[in-house]
């Protein structure tokens, strides 16, 4: 079986850093948000700090991966995602990435406004909570769908290998992403890769 490279180390690091912080923020946020969980766990001031500083660390960590990693590659990936056509990613994957990126900004801004709004009325808007919650609902829905496609759905779950090891089965790549000109993995069969190009 031969493999082709789908994600570089920087891309994978970026993804997993985002994933870890998303989970941290989802868990601490839901404890703060759902009355039953709030009552069960308590410690609201501590959780608020964990949630807030988790959010700050989230964007800082992503910025660090960008600066210390292969920034060019990430920018190229971003440009690839901007064009809504099937290639390395299909359009659905691109839409998910775009909305997720936009939500990062919306989470950050509304979260900061909630934090500062608690200290200064100038930062308080009647709809800040609504925005933070609304984005949370959509983001969690996307996350569940993403998990399903990455781990459960037979046609797409092979992609998980791409995000963990970096490479995917060439046959699968050809079937799922026929428009993608995949580079061969080190030691991979380049003749087979050329077959994809034609």
């Amino acid at each position, binding site marked *: 079986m031969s493999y082709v490279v789908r994600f570089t180390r920087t891309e994978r690091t970026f993804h997993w850093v985002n994933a870890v912080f998303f989970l941290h923020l989802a868990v601490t946020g839901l404890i703060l948000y759902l009355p039953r969980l709030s*009552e069960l766990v*308590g410690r609201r001031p501590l959780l608020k700090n964990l949630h807030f500083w988790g959010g700050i660390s989230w964007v800082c960590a992503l910025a660090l991966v960008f600066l210390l990693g292969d920034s060019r590659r990430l920018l190229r990936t971003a440009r690839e995602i901007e064009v809504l056509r099937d290639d390395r990613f299909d359009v659905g994957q691109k839409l998910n990435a775009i909305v997720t990126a936009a939500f990062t900004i*919306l989470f950050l801004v509304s979260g900061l406004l909630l934090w500062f709004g608690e200290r200064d009325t100038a930062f308080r808007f009647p709809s800040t909570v609504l925005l933070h919650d609304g984005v949370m609902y959509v983001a969690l829905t996307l996350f569940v769908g993403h998990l399903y496609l990455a781990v459960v759905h037979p046609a797409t779950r092979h992609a998980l290998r791409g995000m963990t090891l970096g490479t995917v089965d060439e046959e699968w790549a050809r079937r799922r992403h026929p428009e993608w000109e995949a580079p061969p993995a080190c030691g991979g069969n380049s003749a087979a890769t050329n077959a994809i190009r034609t």
Partner: protein
Amino acid sequence: MNAIDEPRIVPTSVSRVDTLTVGTISIDVDEPVPRRYGRGLFLATVAGGLSSLVWGKTVWNGLANAVPSVPLVPSGWRIYTVAATMPRFDSRTWRLEVGGLVGAPLTLDYDSLRALPRTEEVRDFHCVTGWSVPNVHWAGVRLSDLLDRVQPGIGARAVRFTAAEIPYVDYLTLDQAKLSDVLLAYEMDGKPLPREHGAPVRLVMPRMYGYKSVKWVARVDLVPEAEAGYWELRGYDPDAWIS
């Protein structure tokens, strides 16, 4: 004619993608400029989200009114606390102390609190962070009745409410506390006040934002002046009137 020259002779008003229709030959020359719809979507999502800080609540309320039978948010309530755990209510040991600058201090157990004249208020609850719960049905003791019983002293110009949830505390001026719709509520929507709403009794000051309506009230004291409460010390406006 050389295909490479083709784009030069088409009128400038024709976009580059349109050259595709001129002839199949131009496809060999250059691919259409990729349209970055993704960037547009990204910017639109960010712009839509940020602008919703202004229009979000109006639209949301409109939606909620349009489909009143479907609750859009689980209950509407968000439970805010400041201590590690919520106080637990035990009807055998629970006492409410009413004291400070008064002529006749009072200690009430749960049954004697319930035995006081009962009053009801149906009011909207507004949190300063932007959410509201409409038509909350409160039942309890009118605070002014209780104040009359303890006979506030000459120097008493404010009331301090101390929560069992340490260190939450807040104040009303005596004039505010005497308004007829200020309650010490022990029932909410027909049921005994739930733990997360301040069981067994909370202050309800419906004309002010929620942080004034102290939950888990354990002490009520008449004091000379209103001071900054828990949230006022952390930046909230001492003027909590809902405009």
